[in-house]
Every structure is written in C-alpha cells, then in structure tokens.
C-alpha cells in the first residue's frame, strides 16, 4: 500500500472480459515527500480518481479483491483518493 500521483488515464478497447467497465490509470508511485519510487505503472481504479490526484494504491492478490470481479488479472488498484497527509508536522497537502 503506497501513495501515488495519477499521471493519466489508460484506455484499452480489447481487454480481458473481467476488465470491461474498469478504469485504468497511469500512476507514479511516490513516498510521503513526493519523491518517485520506481517507474510509473498502470493500476485499475476502484473509485473515480483522475489525473493530478494523490491516491493510495495496493498491490498483490488484494488488488483484484478491490474490484467488482475479484478474479480480474490485476496487480495494482487505486483504493483511496487522499485529501491530505501529515508526515511529521502537517506538511503535504495534495
């Protein structure tokens, strides 16, 4: 479970049937200071997150459990849109 910044929306017409109706987002994982952690990845969206937003995402088997079809071939899912975070002294508005 980690923070990430949404970079954009990924659109695919041909995809596994379990992913029909599931939004795909391009996200950049980051730490609490906004420093990128690794490369950008594509994550499914369990909410309605949009570009520019700071989100929380999960990986592993749980990523699919957050979707309507829990047997989707998905290894990353956005599960929350961050309002604000407080690393140490209150810094870090999204």
């Amino acid at each position, binding site marked *: 479970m980690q923070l990430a910044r949404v970079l954009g929306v990924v659109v695919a017409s041909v995809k596994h049937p379990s992913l029909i109706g599931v939004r795909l987002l391009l996200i950049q994982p980051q730490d609490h200071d906004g420093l990128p952690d690794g490369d950008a990845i594509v994550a499914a969206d369990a909410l309605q997150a949009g570009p520019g937003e700071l989100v929380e995402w999960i990986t592993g088997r749980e990523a699919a459990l957050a979707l309507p079809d829990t047997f989707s071939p998905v290894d990353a899912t956005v599960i929350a*849109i961050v309002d604000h975070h407080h690393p140490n002294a209150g810094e870090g508005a999204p």
Partner: protein
Amino acid sequence: MILCRVLGNAVATVKHPVYVGRTVLIVQPVRPDGDARLGRSFLAVDAVGAGEGDLVLCSREGNTARQLLGGPDDPFHSVVLAIIDRINTAAGEVRGPGPGPDGT
C-alpha cells in the same frame, strides 16, 4: 515483517468501503538503530493504535493484513501489527515509546 517509524497519517474521504473507519499510517522503513531510513516510505493500515513517532512492525503481505483487519475477501495489503518497546542488538539497545523493564 519490516521495522518502521511512523511519520504520520494519510486522510481520504473517497475510499474503498472496507477502509472506512480505518487509520492509514505513513511508515518509513528504518535500520535497527531506529533512525536511519531504509528506502521509500509506504502506507499501512493501523491494527494496534500506533501514532506518529512510534517504532512499529509492519507487514506488506495480504494474508497477514486480511487476518488482522477483515474478512478473507477484503482488499487489505499492508498493516501495522505491533508497537516496538525495545530492540536489543550487539550495538546496544534501541528503545521505542513503550514502557521499559521498570515500568516507566
């Protein structure tokens, strides 16, 4: 399990229903001295009432998180599962915020 320092928390209104009422903590992996940072911070759901500044144990593995937090099909992946009182190594003792052997 990963030794971490709690840096703070992340607040979200729009979130998956299983996260409603849960506290999401920002945790920073640290070396056994309790201070030096080890890689990037991540998020973990609190299962023990930990807070900012605490030295804690985290798990980044779904089965552990689901057993502690919810049902078998709930999308939890990482969890804070203990608040560390102290760590004893050859280099000495690192104390967490908990009570010491004399109860203080």
